[in-house]
């Protein structure tokens, strides 16, 4: 018979609860805040830095410890530490403030890096820096969605940024080689998709070097394939048309 007296009562503060349902029962463990994600990613290796106590609970806030029989029936063992590890890796986590914050910040940076990587200033054909993009993203009040991939979000950001500043996807340089007889017809169809035609060469075959928006690549690819029935070909000369090298003002 245990008596609840202040001396044998351990109060836990700053608890982050990790829950798991197993064999129809709910098990909980008490962890420190901001640590569970670190454990899962392998950065934190010391279990004592993660767990507040090694005991497995049914309800942490009420302080109800799980019964031994339940543990054995659910986990097949009564080793509390082992069970804690299992719950830690597989249970539902309550993401803490700092963890969420770093995650959002990381994604934000990642998006900005992707945008900076894909885009150029159309006037100078030079990329914008990541810091500038980050600032622009803050200006348009872009909020990161954790459930979408950063790449998807980056494309969205580009669309939104276009309204605010001079930014464009870096063009892709392509070369088409088309049979002459179909070439002319096809060229008309391709025209709306092409940004700039750099050179045209009518020889035995029609050869066009042009710049396109990378988003249109697939359409162009399909169009050529369909129209020429496999006789035309296209080749990417340059994935990103960007000024290279440093420029010095003189």
């Amino acid at each position, binding site marked *: 018979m245990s008596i609840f007296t202040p001396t044998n009562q351990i109060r836990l503060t*700053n608890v982050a609860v990790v829950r798991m349902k197993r064999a129809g029962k709910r098990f909980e463990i008490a962890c420190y*805040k901001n640590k569970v994600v*670190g454990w899962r990613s392998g950065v934190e290796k010391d279990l004592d830095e993660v767990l507040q106590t090694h005991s497995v609970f049914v309800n942490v806030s009420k302080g109800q410890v799980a019964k031994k029989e339940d543990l054995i029936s659910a986990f097949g063992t009564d080793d509390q530490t082992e069970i804690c590890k299992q719950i830690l890796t597989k249970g539902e986590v309550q993401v803490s403030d700092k963890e969420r914050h770093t995650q959002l910040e990381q994604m934000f940076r990642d998006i900005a890096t992707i945008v900076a990587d894909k885009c150029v200033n159309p006037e100078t054909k030079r990329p914008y820096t990541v810091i500038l993009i980050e600032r622009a993203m803050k200006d348009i009040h872009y909020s990161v969605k954790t459930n979408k991939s950063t790449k998807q979000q980056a494309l969205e950001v580009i669309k939104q940024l276009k309204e*605010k500043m001079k930014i464009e996807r870096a063009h892709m340089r392509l070369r088409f080689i088309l049979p002459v007889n179909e070439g002319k017809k096809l060229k008309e169809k391709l025209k709306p998709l092409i940004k700039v035609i750099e050179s045209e060469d009518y020889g035995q075959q029609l050869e066009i070097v042009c710049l396109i928006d990378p988003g249109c*690549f697939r359409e162009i690819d399909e169009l050529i394939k369909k129209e020429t029935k496999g006789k035309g070909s296209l080749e990417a000369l340059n994935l990103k048309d960007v000024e290279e090298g440093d*420029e010095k003002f*003189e």
Partner: protein
Amino acid sequence: MVLNSLDKMIHLQKNTANIRNICVLAHVDHGKTTLTDCLISSNGIISSRLAGKLRYMDSREDEQIRGITMKSSAISLHYATGNEEYLINLIDSPGHVDFSSEVSTAVRICDGCIIVVDAVEGVCPQTQAVLRQAWLENIRPVLVINKIDRLIVELKFTPQEAYSHLKNILEQINALTGTLFTSKVLEERAERETESQVNPHSEQGEQVYDWSTGLEDTDDSQLYFSPEQGNVVFTSAIDGWGFGIEHFARIYSQKIGIKKEVLMKTLWGDYCINMKAKKIMKGDQAKGKKPLFVQLILENIWSLYDAVLKKDKDKIDKIVTSLGLKIGAREARHSDPKVQINAICSQWLPISHAVLAMVCQKLPSPLDITAERVERLMCTGSQTFDSLPPETQALKAAFMKCGSEETAPVIIFVSKMFAVDAKALPQNKPRPLTQEEIAQRHERARQRHAEKLAAAQGQAPLEPTQDGSALETCPKGEEPRGDEQQVESMTSKPVLQEEDNQESFIAFARVFSGVARRGKKIFVLGPKYSPLEFLRRVPLGFSAPPDGLPPVPHMAYCALENLYLLMGRELEYLEEVPPGNVLGIGGLQDFVLKSATLCSLPSCPPFIPLNFEATPIVRVAVEPKHPSEMPQLVKGMKLLNQADPCVQILIQETGEHVLVTAGEVHLQRCLDDLKERFAKIHISVSEPIIPFRETITKPPKVDMVNEEIGKQQKVAVIHQMKEDQNKIPEGIQVDSVGLITITTPNKLATLSVRAMPLPEEVTQILEENSDLIRSMEQLTSSLNEGENTQVIHQKIQEKIWEFKGKLEQHLTGRRWRNIVDQIWSFGPRKCGPNILVNKSEDFQNSIWTGPAAKASKEASRYRDLGNSIVSGFQLATLSGPMCEEPLMGVCFILEKWDLSKFEEQGASDLAKEGQEENETCSGGNESQELQDGCSEAFEKRTSHKGESPLTDCYGPISGQLIATMKEACRYALQVKPQRLMAAMYTCEIMATSDVLGRVYAVLSKREGRVLQEEMKEGTDMFIIKAVLPVAESFGFADEIRKRTSGLASPQLVFSHWEIIPSDPFWVPTTEEEYLHFGEKADSENQARKYMNAVRKRKGLYVEEKIVEHAEKQRTLSKNK
């Protein structure tokens, strides 16, 4: 306000013999600007009461606030002595190290300089620097020892002490001059020796025995500063007095009756006077006799200060009457002793007289320009004067003559461009007030007055020049003038508003020969112009109108639009400027960037570039606060680049706009200028992005505590070892030598890839030949297309073989056998310092073979799939696994590629699908790229390709190959010991021997490594060569200057990439390491620090704990 009217100035400008172009040079805070103030006040431009407080030449707001000069600016002064009238073009220069470029611009257009030294502080680092600059430009210096009053008031020296202190300072300076002189003589001698080695017949006998340094033969007595030669003046600019010993020699020769010449020789030095005998004797300090200087000069001044400070009214009156001075009642009654001293001394020993008299006597006029200096100016780099074309050599005479005849060629040197608010220009002054100008009304009121004078001068001759040649010069000057007539008219306002925002550039220049006239057409020769080039392009004796000349690089032809007399912050209109004068030229901003030579003859060589003591080293990246303001920023930076002689501006490949300045103060000024004048936008400043490279090394033989690894067993750090294994996901086999075998998601193709570090030399060769590799790439790609239009150039072909030979030479040994022949591609971007090697048996498509081997169908099919593999390699090399930076010096070896399953499956459809497949592959590169970028298109692709047997749910085979190859390369890297490579600067530091230790301390703190240290011959300067990671270079220049009190100044140049030896993923594993570093090894790991910084910046996952100690988090109470 201006007592000496413009008329007088113009008149004086014509008398070349009486012009002195001088500049004031000194260490920061030694009183250049105060001295200049005193000299200006002698001309009545500012009140003598304000002299020293106003700092008239510091016209910028930040100059006044910070109390330091930041730019050199000129003013023309008039000085009359006896019946000679002189025009002195005085240039005030900044003393701060960061602005030593401004000093260079000033020194170039002067003939002499005043070196100011603080009597208390003595010789300081910048004093050395400016002396050196003056020396290099071959201009003659005179010395002003300033702030003598501090010796009396602050240090409370006795006259005797002060004398020995002054003597010390003089000795220091002369020692400096001496070292400059000896180093020059030694240099000349070294030159002579090399020459004599070339033609050994000349003076052979003499050379053999000549072990002396040649110092003895060269006369150096003229060089040194000494009061008896009259090139030293003692002053106190703040109290407005100064004297040379000549002044006292004159007084005492009357009083005592000793000849002035004798006194001149003996007033300074170890002489004493026997008053009774009226004889001057060689003094002996030991006898306790006072030297003449103390007895006759210093004691008088001391007693005056004493009297005034003690407020001894009677004594003051006595002194004043004995000196025959009149002191105004107001000054006499003034309670502040400073005011009294100022009033008495400035009458007794007027500073302007002492200094200007010395300037006029001791410094050369433009006519006295030495042949040596002319030759130096005209010979760029290693050229000698004799090698110049004869037309050019002929110009030397014009230089020497400095003639003002019509026939004399006009030669003008522009040493810098400075920006002036368009409204400060004389022609724009009277205009309706705009809102922001109201604050400046006070200043403008004064300018108005000047304008009236200028208009009276400028208006009349303006009209006749309008016809003919000067036609295009006028509209700009005319328009605002029109407004003057209809001052308040509303219609003209928008036009003016526009002009308001414009910065007008004025060239800071000097006429070396001929007369500069408004509207005169002249050649503008850039620093890189070569007269030889011109003479080659243009037939001799051309007579065609100069406009019709063929274009010559770095040369332009334009008219002198506006000429100005520079009067500090004001400008006065001039019609013409005779030779030997300093002037401002407007309207050159489109032709001159920073400096240029203007000449009426194209055969003139450009003057040698200004030699800057400080090269720009402080780098920052600048960005607009609002991204949409980018164009303004770029425009502003272009203007800044023109306005500042020492700033560098780069746009980097990353899109950063980098501003490189000489120091922190200079940086601050540049930023202020950008914000307020040139760009007029908010900007933010950050450290520029530091590039890194990733590479791999051979596995180490010793651990971190230098114990051999093989001998000791690993301590069981089980989970850490596991961790390493976990990096490689399942489905990939790794063997013991790091061979990665990986299969595409559709299980049809298998690749085996291994990564090996390239020897350092090979990486270097690849770096050097990137252009060649690129052209090779272009060649093969055009040949692949089947166009044989481009015939391989013989030279290129030779170069390629040479390149191949070099590679073979360095890639020797068992492991590298035949590898050069199997090189498939370089990367990233097909020309980088990484190699892809194909070791499979049927490989025949190496970069060396060119188009020959691609005839068979088999080969072409391989080529198409091969393209995907090469693209995979390119992607892998573009961003490495550590922090997505490009790779460097890595060789990927494709040991096997098994496409058998794929071929089996494809064989049946091959015949009809051959063409199609072809396409898929060539397009595949990008489709994969796009999948990486945007998953949106993925499904589309597969659905449309659904009918093709070659594709399945994993997308086209080519795309899969790219991804697989990329993965394979990454894993192959990860199983090897990875290292970061840091960009390194070579750093050259000049330092005196006493600060050497501190230089080393700063270097080692910043992970620098000293390569070499040697003493400069003839001086006590050491030259230290070191390398320093770019990442550590921010604030380096500033720190080293601070730690060495400015005695060492570094110069940084990018040199190479270097592997950082520490392993970014290192954790202690062996027992020894455990003992040494502990379990966590929290001692800082340089490579990891860099890697994590980059990863954080890019938003990549960083292996860092969000919270280090769980228990130490803030405990939140229940109700917060």
